[in-house]
């Protein structure tokens, strides 16, 4: 299927990559940083910092302050009003609860005041709910009432799905895009500038041998890098890949093919090493933001959704996510499979169209 020249050249490209420790480190760094952020922030949310000003000496206020201090949702600091107001302004406290002096009457409704910095109002709803909930349970305890309702939350997907599970396929897709475009586009411009391409074409290899070798080498490189990230995610972050790994890797290879072709076109388009960077940036950065790597495309304005979801990275992200999160197999992807197919054809035509051999060898 492959000639020994193609295989040896591919092996050489692989060897060059493996000896380039720095670029291996950097290509792994980006996804690792993102995932690392989730290792440290995973688990329970930080308790909300609440200051408590108790101006009442009633048993009820004491009871309230004890109960609320036990609640793991809060980190309570008791103090006088002047100090806590200052802390609230400084941002050391999220909210301050003020218990008035007349607090403690069991017959009439007791009123608490919640002091807030309105610019931090984002958390108001959750703080309010949490305080309400605490008050309710205190009330029940004091009045010795059993709760009338209890809410049981059941996940209909019946499997754990966290943001990191959503994020991982996006990061994988972004990583394979960078590795592929970098490996084809940047390399071609660099090899051409330094006369290395010309030296290669002194020998009786054909342009297609060169392309086949780069594609082979990059496929292996992408699969290796993806496997590192994937194993780390499964081992450390306990990520579940719902679909089959075969489908996932199949999708990765199709995506790699698309971005290698795009890279070849860009590499042929850019005449100099200085030009290739902005050109590649123009293609990759908007996709990082728009293609649903970090948040679903459906959360974007309706009007841009059809355009955005047609981007090559979007198609690959969606494909990977359907496989990893929803267990869809590679062959039943429908719309996404069509998108992948169209991009494969389109990018291949672009690559062969733009790839001027004489230009490359010069």
């Amino acid at each position, binding site marked *: 299927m492959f000639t020994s*020249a193609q295989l040896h*050249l591919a092996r050489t490209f692989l060897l060059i990559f493996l000896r380039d420790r720095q670029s291996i480190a950097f290509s792994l760094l980006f996804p690792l940083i993102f995932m690392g952020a989730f290792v440290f922030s995973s688990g329970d949310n930080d308790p909300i910092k609440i200051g408590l000003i108790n101006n009442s000496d009633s048993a009820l206020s004491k009871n309230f302050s004890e109960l609320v201090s036990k609640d793991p949702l809060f980190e309570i600091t008791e103090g006088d009003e002047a100090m806590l107001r200052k802390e609230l302004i400084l941002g050391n406290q999220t909210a301050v609860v003020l218990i008035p002096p007349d607090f403690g009457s069991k017959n009439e409704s007791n009123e608490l005041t919640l002091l807030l910095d309105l610019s931090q109002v984002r958390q108001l709803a959750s703080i309010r709910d949490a305080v309400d909930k605490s008050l309710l349970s205190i009330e029940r305890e004091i009045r010795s009432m059993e709760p009338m309702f209890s809410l049981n939350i059941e996940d209909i997907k019946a499997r754990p799905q966290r943001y990191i599970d959503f994020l991982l396929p996006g990061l994988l897709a972004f990583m394979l895009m960078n590795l592929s475009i970098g490996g084809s586009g940047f390399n071609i411009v660099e090899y051409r500038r330094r006369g*290395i391409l010309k*030296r290669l074409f002194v020998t*009786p290899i054909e342009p297609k041998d060169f392309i086949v070798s780069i594609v082979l080498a990059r496929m292996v490189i992408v699969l290796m890098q993806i496997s590192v990230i994937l194993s780390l995610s499964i081992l450390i972050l306990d990520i579940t890949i719902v679909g089959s790994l075969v489908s996932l890797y199949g999708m990765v290879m199709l995506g790699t093919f698309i971005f290698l072709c795009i890279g070849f076109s860009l590499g042929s388009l850019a005449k100099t090493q200085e030009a290739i960077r902005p050109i590649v940036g123009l293609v990759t950065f908007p996709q990082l933001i728009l293609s649903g790597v970090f948040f679903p495309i459906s959360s974007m304005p309706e009007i841009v959704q059809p355009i955005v979801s047609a981007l090559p990275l979007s198609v690959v992200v969606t494909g990977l996510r359907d496989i990893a999160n929803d267990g869809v197999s590679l062959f039943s992807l429908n719309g996404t499979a069509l998108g992948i197919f169209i991009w494969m054809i389109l990018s291949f035509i672009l690559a062969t169209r733009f790839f001027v051999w*004489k230009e490359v060898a010069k």
Partner: protein
Amino acid sequence: MPIVQASNLLKAYPLPEDKNKSFNAVDGINLEIRSGEIYGILGPNGAGKTTTLEMLEGLNDIDGGVALIDGIDVSKEPYKVKSIIGVQLQSNEYFDRLSLSELLVLFGKLYGQESNSEALLSKVNLLDKASAKPDELSGGQKQRFSIACALVNSPKVLFLDEPTTGLDPQAKRNVWKLIHNLKDSGMTIVLTTHNMEEAENLCDRIGIMDKGNMIAEDTPQALINKFAPDPPQAPLQGNIEDVFLSLTGHSLRD
């Protein structure tokens, strides 16, 4: 039959100032290079030397005329021609992070051959550098290494594009010796040069090119006799540099 034969070889490039017009970088030259000789192409910058070489090597399209290497038409079967020739380019950059012997093995594979990197490196006196990277070599060593790369397929014809440009006298003599040894092994060598001493001492025959044309061709001695027999001040006679300047003019070229 000559091993390299070219007739009416033509290369046209669009003019930089007017893309619709073109000029002939190589303007219909004829070449006949015999098997086993060292043939030097001399000429000022922009004379068309490298373009001529690249057309013979199958690296540049031939716009007119015919070039045959060992009877094979370069335009029709460029890959067949490439497999029987060795080429040293002016720029000698290689993939990073590969050693000399790894590069020689790679180039051998590109010809579908297993190359004996040790034998090739000892031929160019670089055996002790086998595991070095090309960018760790000196200018002369780099030049010898690029000749070694051009020898991986045991070529019938070896093309050298300015093999000694930028080398100090010792390194230059070293490369000449190497080229002589290759000639003694029966290889045909075609080289371009700016260096008159090189053309005079190394080449069996010289072709002088100017503005895309071959303006003179003969053995060094015959050219001296013909164009510079007795220079006014020189004790014996002029040298090939005088031949060169009298043919191409004294004005500075870029």
